[in-house]
C-alpha cells in the first residue's frame, strides 16, 4: 500500500514537472496566453468595480427613473390674458414621471400632472409589454391615444405653446387620452415601415364635468371608444424622411342638451373621428447639430350622430350645439437657424364648434402664429411667440406668449 502511495506521489510529481517543462511557443499560443491574461484582467476589473459599489447600491438600482418637467407660461397679449383663468404668469403644469421595468414582461410608466387650475391628475399610467412574439406590443392603462401625429406628443414637448386648434376643439385641450388597451404591430410587407395600432378605451374623449346622462356612454360595448392608426414611413434619403398616416375612431360621448329634466341635461351620442397626417423631416447627418427642417400637416374630421337617442322626458330636446360634422386642419413648419435656435410657424383653419353662426351653421376659425425656440441645453427650452386668431364674424385676437420648460432627472430620448 505504501509502495502504491509513493508511486502515486512520484507519478503526480512527474506529470506536474512535465507540465512545467518549457515547450516551444507558437504565435497562436502567445495570442491565446495574452487573451487569457487579458480576460483575467477584465474579470479582476469587473470584480473590483462590483466590490467598489456603495452599500445599498443594488436597492438603488431597482428604483424607477424619476423625472419632473416644469411648464411655465407668460401671457403678454396686448388686450388681456387669453388664458382660461385670466392669469398672466402661470405654472401651466408640472409633470412627475416614473418609469421602470416592472418585470421581464412589462415596462411601467406613470405621469402625474399638477397644475394650478386642475390640481393633481393621473395624466398617463400604463404598462407596455416587452416580450410578445410577432412584433406585437400591448399597452394597458391610461395613455394619449394614437390618433393623429401631435396628439401622441406631450403638450410640453410640442414646438408650439398649445396643440393646433383642430386638435384642441375636436380631441381636447390637453389631447385625447383614454383608459383601455392598445395593440400594435410593426411590419414591412411592402418594403417600408408600417405600424398598425388599434385601441379600445372606456370613452373616446372627456365629457363636460357637469353633464348628466341616464347611463354612462360605456354602459354598452358599442359605447366604448375604438380607434385605429396606420403609420407609413419612408426614408427618401439619409437626411430626408416622410411619414403619411391615417387614423380613425368612434365612440359615444355625452352631448349637452338645450334643457334638463330630473337632473338629466345630456345624452350619449356617437362621435366618429377621421384624420390624416403628413410629416416631412430633413436633417443632414453631418450638419445635423445645426440644420434641420420639419413640415407637418394634419386634417381631421369629426362626424356627429344626427338623431339623438333621447329619454322620453326629453323627447323634444335638442343638442345645445349643432349636431353636424366639422373639419379642421393645420400646417406647421420649423427651421433650425443655429445649434440652439429654431424658427417655427403654424397656420390653423377649422370649422369651430365653439363658434355659433346664424341659422345653426358654424363659423370658421383662422389663426397664424410664429415661434422662436431657444434651447440653452437639452434640458431646458425658452419659447417666444405671436399668434393672430381670427374667428368668423368676431374680433381678431392677438396673442403674445412666452414659455419656459425644464426637465429634471435622467436624460430622456429625443422626441421623433
Amino acid at each position, binding site marked *: 500500500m505504501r509502495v502504491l502511495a509513493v508511486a502515486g506521489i512520484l507519478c503526480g510529481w512527474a506529470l506536474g514537472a512535465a507540465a512545467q517543462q518549457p515547450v516551444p511557443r507558437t*504565435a*497562436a499560443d502567445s*495570442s*491565446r496566453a*495574452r*487573451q487569457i491574461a*487579458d*480576460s483575467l484582467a*477584465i474579470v479582476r*476589473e*469587473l470584480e473590483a468595480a462590483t466590490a467598489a459599489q456603495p452599500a445599498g447600491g443594488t436597492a438603488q438600482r431597482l428604483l424607477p427613473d424619476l423625472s419632473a418637467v416644469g411648464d411655465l407660461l407668460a401671457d403678454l397679449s396686448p388686450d388681456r390674458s387669453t388664458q382660461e383663468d385670466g392669469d398672466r404668469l402661470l405654472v401651466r403644469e408640472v409633470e412627475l414621471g416614473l418609469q421602470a*421595468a416592472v418585470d*421581464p414582461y412589462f*415596462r411601467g410608466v406613470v405621469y402625474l400632472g399638477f397644475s394650478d387650475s386642475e390640481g393633481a391628475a393621473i395624466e398617463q399610467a400604463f404598462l*407596455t409589454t*416587452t*416580450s*410578445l*412574439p*410577432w*412584433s*406585437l*406590443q400591448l399597452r394597458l392603462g391610461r395613455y394619449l391615444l394614437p390618433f393623429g401625429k401631435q396628439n401622441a406628443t406631450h403638450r410640453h414637448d410640442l414646438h408650439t405653446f398649445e396643440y393646433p386648434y383642430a386638435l384642441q376643439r375636436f380631441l381636447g385641450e390637453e389631447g385625447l387620452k383614454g383608459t383601455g388597451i392598445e395593440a400594435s*404591430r*410593426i*411590419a*414591412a*410587407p411592402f418594403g*417600408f*415601415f408600417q*405600424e398598425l395600432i388599434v385601441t379600445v378605451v372606456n370613452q373616446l374623449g372627456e365629457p363636460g364635468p357637469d353633464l348628466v346622462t341616464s347611463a354612462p356612454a360605456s354602459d354598452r360595448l358599442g359605447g366604448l371608444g375604438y380607434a385605429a392608426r396606420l*403609420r407609413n*414611413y419612408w*426614408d427618401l434619403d*439619409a437626411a430626408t*424622411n416622410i*411619414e403619411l398616416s391615417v387614423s380613425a375612431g368612434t365612440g359615444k360621448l355625452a352631448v349637452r342638451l338645450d334643457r334638463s329634466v330630473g337632473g338629466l341635461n345630456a345624452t350619449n351620442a356617437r362621435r366618429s373621428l377621421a384624420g390624416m397626417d403628413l410629416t416631412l*423631416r430633413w*436633417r443632414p*447627418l*453631418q*450638419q*445635423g*447639430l*445645426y440644420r434641420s427642417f420639419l413640415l407637418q400637416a394634419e386634417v381631421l374630421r369629426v362626424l356627429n350622430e344626427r338623431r339623438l337617442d333621447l329619454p322620453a322626458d326629453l323627447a323634444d330636446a335638442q343638442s345645445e350645439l349643432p349636431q353636424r360634422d366639422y373639419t379642421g386642419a393645420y400646417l406647421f413648419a420649423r427651421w433650425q437657424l443655429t*445649434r*440652439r435656435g429654431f424658427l417655427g410657424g403654424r397656420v390653423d383653419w377649422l370649422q369651430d364648434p365653439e363658434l355659433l353662426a346664424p341659422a345653426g351653421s358654424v363659423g370658421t376659425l383662422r389663426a397664424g402664429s410664429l415661434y422662436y425656440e431657444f434651447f440653452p*441645453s*437639452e*434640458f431646458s427650452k425658452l419659447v417666444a411667440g405671436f399668434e393672430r386668431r381670427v374667428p368668423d364674424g368676431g374680433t381678431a385676437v392677438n396673442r403674445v406668449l412666452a414659455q419656459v420648460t425644464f426637465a429634471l432627472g*435622467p*436624460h430622456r*430620448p*429625443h422626441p*421623433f
Partner: protein
Amino acid sequence: MRRLLIGLHALVLVLMARPASAQLQVVTSTTDLYDIATAVGGPLIRAVHISEGYQDPHFVEAKPSFILRLRDADVFAFVGLDLEIGWMPLLLQGARNRKLQPGQPGYLDVSSVVQVLDAARGPVDRSQGDVHPMGNPHYWLNPENGRRIARLFAGTFGALDPQHAAAYQDGAARFQARLAEQERSWTPLLAAIRGQPVVAWHTSWRYLADYTGLDIVGFLEPKPGVPPSPAHLAGLIATMKRTGAKLIIMEPFYDRKTADFVATRTGATVLVLPPSVGGIKAATDYFQLLRYNLEQLAAALR
C-alpha cells in the same frame, strides 16, 4: 363576406412573413463597432450600423426604419455609457424584439468590458453639462479597447451561434494580430505626438490622448455638450498661449467657425479628425481610422 375573410387572412400572412436567415443578424450603434463586428464575424454575420461615422452619435434620429433593423436582429451592440441615450430606448421599445431586452445575450453593452475614463467619483448634476456619469463613452479610440471589443464580440457571437464559436475566436485573434502589427508601425508617429499640448473641441479625444500621451490642455466646450462662451474662449486662448498649444482638434460634425476664431488668435492650426470609421473617406476601417488620426496628428505636431 367570405372574400373579405380570405383577403384578411392573406393580409395577416403577408404581415407575418419574415425571411429566414442562417447568418447572425447584428446591429451596431456605431460604425466602429460595426467594423470590429464584421472583422470578427466575417461572412457568418450580417451586420448593419445605425449612426454614420461623420454624425454626432448622440443626436441620431430614432427613425422607424431603424426599428425594422432591430426587429430582426439577434444582437444589438452599443457603446453604452449613455452615448445613445437620446435615441436607443425609443428604437428598442419600438422593435419589440425579445432578444434585445436588457439581460438577454443580444443586448450587448460593449462598455462592460472596456477601460473607462472620466467616470464620476463624486456627486454629478446637470450644472456640469451633459455629463456621462458612468464615464467617457468614446473609448474605441484606444486600440486596447478595440481588442477587448473584438474578444467580447467573439464570445457573444459564439454563445449565440455555438456551431461557429471557433471561427469567431479565430476572427478576433486575426483582428488582434493585425492590430498588433499596425501598432508596431505606429511607433514613430506616437513618438512625434507624445507630450505635445493640444486643445480639443469635445472630450471625444480623451482615449486617443491616453493612448498616445497627447496632452489635452483645454476644451472648446466649457462643459460637455455646452457651446463655448466668449469668456471661456478668452480663458482658453490664454491657456494655449501659456502652454504653447498650437493645434486644435475637432470632429467633422461641429461648426469650425469658433475653432478658426481661436486659431487666428493663437496662431494655432485646426485639424478636423474623424472620431469614427467613415468619418472621412480615408477612415475605411478601424485600423485606417487610427492610422489616419495618428498620421495627421504627427504631421501637424512635427
